[in-house]
């Protein structure tokens, strides 16, 4: 130990008998093997701690190692593989490693975005779990200087008939709305799946997109020895202690008892925090800033110091606390929400304090940047923690976990559809996989800020860059059933589908964020899913020029040894340079010709039709031809840019006929189509779109029919649009209000 105390002890004399009692309590616990195990640390990991410190840690230090080395914070099982993802490109200003990714959109504007999971807390306490998920991702974005302009989400629930599903759907949706609506950031879209594999572990992935001027971006690396470290926002309470550790373990029957580890959100304070931070960011007082997310004060201080290659000293007596007699252990591990840590330029404290006081937020100078490369904590006049930063951050444990590839599946063949194509269409449009999600997004304010010009329900949401002709298109995508059947192909497909959804509104895809949700990485087959999905995603991101600029990994989504479907949720952002050159999915004019762009459908294996009509989830997913995706995307974007087509829709879940029906419902106009086989109607072959254009416009594709009437007619049979609408509209509200 070469470190010497930085602060003279006289600066923080114990504040009375109470402080001394607290200190004593936090030092009393003997570090036993059981206590180490309770902290989620293996005996080997504990051995590394002993070596790093050259002594036995105290309880506070053990807690700090425990959260920093949790899977959630350290990415110890995933780091090795995440490196395979492409993360650079001329459009990328900042890739993974910061609070969020940053992409250039020209004219001195940039977008900052990231998606993050809040799975474990949302299962235990759906409203607060989901709400604080939104709060956390918002902070990741405005920490970097951006004003958040859109929220998205990707949700996975269990079987609709499972006794817990309705409760979880209701709570999660209310929580996302409760937070986003109050903060005043529109929730413009997302996706929701139901599958029995999520019965014991739902997925709540929240994404925020913000806009910033490129000369007003803020980073988290602390700098300037002696610069003050500032705490702002809400006070610290005992909520969420060990949230990160909880999120790094499997669930068992008694997981409900973990409710106290779920944080409680206060979106009103978050709104004030956004405004106060942006007001301070308009000055040049900030050196570095970082939100307190998972592992709260611990991870924020460690990351800031580690990134800056400096040390940090915090005086815990100065931390604003909400509860009496909090120990250093509790303060450092609390995940109380709506808090930020900043390093200011010297002498700028008063200016900053005035802004935070105007917004009625706590503001406290709690420490300073040091040259020690150690995290040092004082409390009651004594040093209660002194840890070298290396082992906490960059040199945290790294595992190359054994992984086995998922066996290839054989095509099933010999399918003999029993029903007519139009009958199956009605079934599919009202099935859990494809029915309207309107019940969900009507609970989200998707219009606040008045720049939403592509609302939920289309391929991608569109939000204007305020005061310009530019707009950002946003989508979230993943087909976990494909990923389960073939992780590599599923990984490719998730990126390809995001690419198509951005393309279908006319946007040029820019970059991607990912939220990697998987089961227990200590099982080789689960690790194989993870490695496979990464491989497919990496290929697709490179081929489609959509680098990954930010992301998050959530492992141990298992209950009693049963894992979820592998779910690499993708959030992607595209740019419309001129939002007048955009389109949507709605049929516009009777008589327009309906075209299939791409090959006729053939692939029914793993389709929604096979699942929902035949009750089977067999075979391989449709193969993805990335060169074809790219060519087809460029072609569609040109058609939209040139104003040659009147509507566009990508073909994904459900196939071509479902895409046509969705376009018909959006425009309230039917379609008359030439006869189709089930494979042509419901095959989920990739790299395909449906477009409409006036008669006479030459489209390179297959003419399927024309827009018009009040039904979908396929050859000689037809079904009324009203029947499709009823099935599509009512399924979700019916199960939620039953």
């Amino acid at each position: 130990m070469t470190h010497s105390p930085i602060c003279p002890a006289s600066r923080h004399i114990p504040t009375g008998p109470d402080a001394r009692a607290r200190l004593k309590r936090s030092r009393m616990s003997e570090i036993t093997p059981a206590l180490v195990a309770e902290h989620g640390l293996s005996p080997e990991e504990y051995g590394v701690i002993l070596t790093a410190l050259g002594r036995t840690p105290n309880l506070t230090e053990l807690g700090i190692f425990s959260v920093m080395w949790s899977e959630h914070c350290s990415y110890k099982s995933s780091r090795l593989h995440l490196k395979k993802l492409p993360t650079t490109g001329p459009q990328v200003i900042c890739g993974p490693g910061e609070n969020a990714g940053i992409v250039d959109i020209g004219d001195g504007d940039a977008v900052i975005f990231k998606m993050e999971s809040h799975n474990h807390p949302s299962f235990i306490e759906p409203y607060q779990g989901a709400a604080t998920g939104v709060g956390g991702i918002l902070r990741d974005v405005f920490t970097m200087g951006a004003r958040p302009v859109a929220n998205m989400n990707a949700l996975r629930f269990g079987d609709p008939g499972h006794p817990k599903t309705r409760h979880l759907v209701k709570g999660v949706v209310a929580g996302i709305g409760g937070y986003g609506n109050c903060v005043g950031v529109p929730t413009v879209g997302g996706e929701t799946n139901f599958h029995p594999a999520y019965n014991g572990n739902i997925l709540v992935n929240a994404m925020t997109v913000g806009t910033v001027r490129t000369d007003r971006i803020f980073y988290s690396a602390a700098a300037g020895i002696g610069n003050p470290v500032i705490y702002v926002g809400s006070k610290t309470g005992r909520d969420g202690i060990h949230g990160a550790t909880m999120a790094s373990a499997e669930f068992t029957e008694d997981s409900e008892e973990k409710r106290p580890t779920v944080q409680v959100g206060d979106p009103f304070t978050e709104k004030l925090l956004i405004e106060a931070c942006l007001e301070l960011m308009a000055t040049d007082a900030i050196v570095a800033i970082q939100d307190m997310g998972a592992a709260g004060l611990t991870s924020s201080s460690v990351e800031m110091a580690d990134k800056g290659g400096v040390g940090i000293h915090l005086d815990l007596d100065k931390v604003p606390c909400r509860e009496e007699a909090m120990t250093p252990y509790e303060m450092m591990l609390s995940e109380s929400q709506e808090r930020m840590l900043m390093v200011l330029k010297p002498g700028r404290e008063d200016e900053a304090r005035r802004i935070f006081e105007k917004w009625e937020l706590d503001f406290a100078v709690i420490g300073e940047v040091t040259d020690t490369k150690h995290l040092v904590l004082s409390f009651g006049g004594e040093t209660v923690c002194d840890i070298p930063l290396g082992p906490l951050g960059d040199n945290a444990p790294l595992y190359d976990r054994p992984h086995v590839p998922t066996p290839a599946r054989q095509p099933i063949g010999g399918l003999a559809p029993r029903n007519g194509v139009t009958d199956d269409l009605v079934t599919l449009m009202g099935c859990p996989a494809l029915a309207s999600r309107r019940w969900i997004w009507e609970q989200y304010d998707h219009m606040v800020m008045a720049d939403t010009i592509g609302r939920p329900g289309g391929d991608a949401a569109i939000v204007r860059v305020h005061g310009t002709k530019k707009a950002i298109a946003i989508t979230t995508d993943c087909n976990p059933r494909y990923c389960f059947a073939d992780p590599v192909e599923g990984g490719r497909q998730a990126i390809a589908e995001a690419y198509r959804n951005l393309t279908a509104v006319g946007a040029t895809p820019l970059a991607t964020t990912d939220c990697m949700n998987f089961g227990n990485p200590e099982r080789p087959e689960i690790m194989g899913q993870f490695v496979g999905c990464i491989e497919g995603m990496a290929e697709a991101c490179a081929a489609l020029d959509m680098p990954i600029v930010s992301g998050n990994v959530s492992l141990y989504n298992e209950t009693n040894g049963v894992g979820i479907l592998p779910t690499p949720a993708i959030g992607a952002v595209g740019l419309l340079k001129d939002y007048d050159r955009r389109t949507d999915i709605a049929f516009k004019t009777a008589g327009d010709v309906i075209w299939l762009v791409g090959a006729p459908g053939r692939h029914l294996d793993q389709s929604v039709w096979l699942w929902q009509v035949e009750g089977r989830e067999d075979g391989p997913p449709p193969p993805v031809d990335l060169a074809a995706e790219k060519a087809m995307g460029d072609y569609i974007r040109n058609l939209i840019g040139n104003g040659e087509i009147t509507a566009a829709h990508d073909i994904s879940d459900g196939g071509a006929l479902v895409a046509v029906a969705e376009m018909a419902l959006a425009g309230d106009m039917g379609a008359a189509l030439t006869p189709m086989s089930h494979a042509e109607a419901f095959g989920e072959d990739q790299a395909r779109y449906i477009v409409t254009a006036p008669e006479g416009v030459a489209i390179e594709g297959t003419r399927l029919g024309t827009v018009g009437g009040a039904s979908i007619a396929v050859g000689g049979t037809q079904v009324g649009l009203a029947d499709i609408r009823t099935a599509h509209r009512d399924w979700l509200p019916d199960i939620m209000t039953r």
Partner: protein
Amino acid sequence: MKAAVIVFPGSNCDRDMAVALRDVAKADVQMVWHGEADLPDVDLIALPGGFSYGDYLRTGAIAAKSPVMAAVVKAAAQGRHVLGVCNGFQMLTETGILPGALLRNAGLDYVCRDVPLTVEAADGAFCGDYEAGGTIRIPVAHHDGNYFADEGTLDELEGEGRIAFRYAEPVNGSARDIAGIRNRRGNVLGMMPHPERLVDRDQGGTDGRGLFTALAKALG
């Protein structure tokens, strides 16, 4: 026209309102912090939507006690024009400038969607550019928009032509489908739907423009 948009902690439609007033009503707009005790000399005071004070206690209740609200009450009594949208409407009932209260939606859920409104009163500074009996489409976004007043008050509102807009389909359980009301003198309008959100084609409609063009004509 000169307009002031009052900003409370937790307001989040303040910018949207300012943009609509500037772009459509061609107003000279200034933002006024809730802590101000005096109002600038303006023709229109706008109380924007949002979640002032996080909707804690009751929607609009804490904002109604803000320093600036005493000045708003006084200005309204003097005949200055006041527009309250969504949370702004809730503040107007909380201060008693308008009668009644906004309760939790009958369906208990937050609701955000375009709704058809019937224009009941096509006159005055706010509604003069709409057609009486016509239907306009304006979005709502609220959790507490269920208008309540006693029968006597409701009869009075009807009798005096003070109901400005009614929902043309069920939305939140409002008494007599009330979406917006005026004070007796006609210089104060409170409404739950957000006209400032549909003022240009790209937003998906322009039915909100009429309110701002009418204000421009009436207030210069």
